[in-house]
């Protein structure tokens, strides 16, 4: 049973690590998007 617990714990921990990682990536992409938008806006007003 301890094996089962360990196995499940490790797998779920990995899943959550993946979730957190995805969150970070999403934030990076969002920031990039914002930067692009700002550039475009500046480019247009020129």
């Amino acid at each position, binding site marked *: 049973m*301890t094996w089962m*617990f360990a196995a*499940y*714990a490790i797998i779920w921990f990995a899943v959550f690590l993946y979730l957190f990682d995805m969150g970070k990536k*999403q934030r990076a*992409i*969002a920031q990039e998007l914002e930067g692009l938008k700002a550039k*475009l806006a500046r480019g247009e007003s020129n």
Partner: protein
Amino acid sequence: MSTTRDTFGIVLTALALIAMMVSIYLVFMYVPTEVTMGEVQKIFYFHVPSAWLAFFAFFLVFVFSIIYLIRRDKRWDTLAASSAEIGVLFCTLVLVTGPIWAKLVWGVWWTWDARLTLTLVLWLIYVAYIMLRHYMSDPERRATFSAVLGIIGFIDVPMVYFSIRWWRTQHPQPVVSGGEGSGLEGPMLMTLMVCLSTFTLLFFSILRYRLRLQALRDELDELQDLVEHGE
């Protein structure tokens, strides 16, 4: 909104993680093994919450669909679609863990009993929902049509359940004994409740990620429009 740190989302996910660790501990190290079915019975602690959450998700689709048709705010459509996707995810889990349990405990993969069949039909209805969305490009129309489907799909659920249940009494299938909820108390009930809370937290955590993803996609579309029509 998506560039700032999503503290609520992070806390939610962290809570879900902690809850999951607690649940796994309870299931494997704490709760006593059921006498008749043995170790396999423990699938039950993940199987049942998945089922409850799948139904809850589809109920949410129903509610969000109605609200969308009334208010026509795109965010409700996103909520409905996201709930449907996560609902299908949990529904798939139920349909996978169910037969595994059935085979190990009762010797048959499938029994066409009311609950399992209902879950299968639910899965079919909401996969159809996702497919419909996939085959439509106009966002407003897609939202409206999905909302209609979401409402009809959910209204159908009780009728599917009763028709299958009554059909079962006319056509008895191999009888499997020992319903899941029979005489659940003490540590087993507590473990089940903890697992239910865990899966609920997990559901909302994933929902939040999914919503943020959609917000990103929408911003990207906006940007593309700007690029195409800005010159």
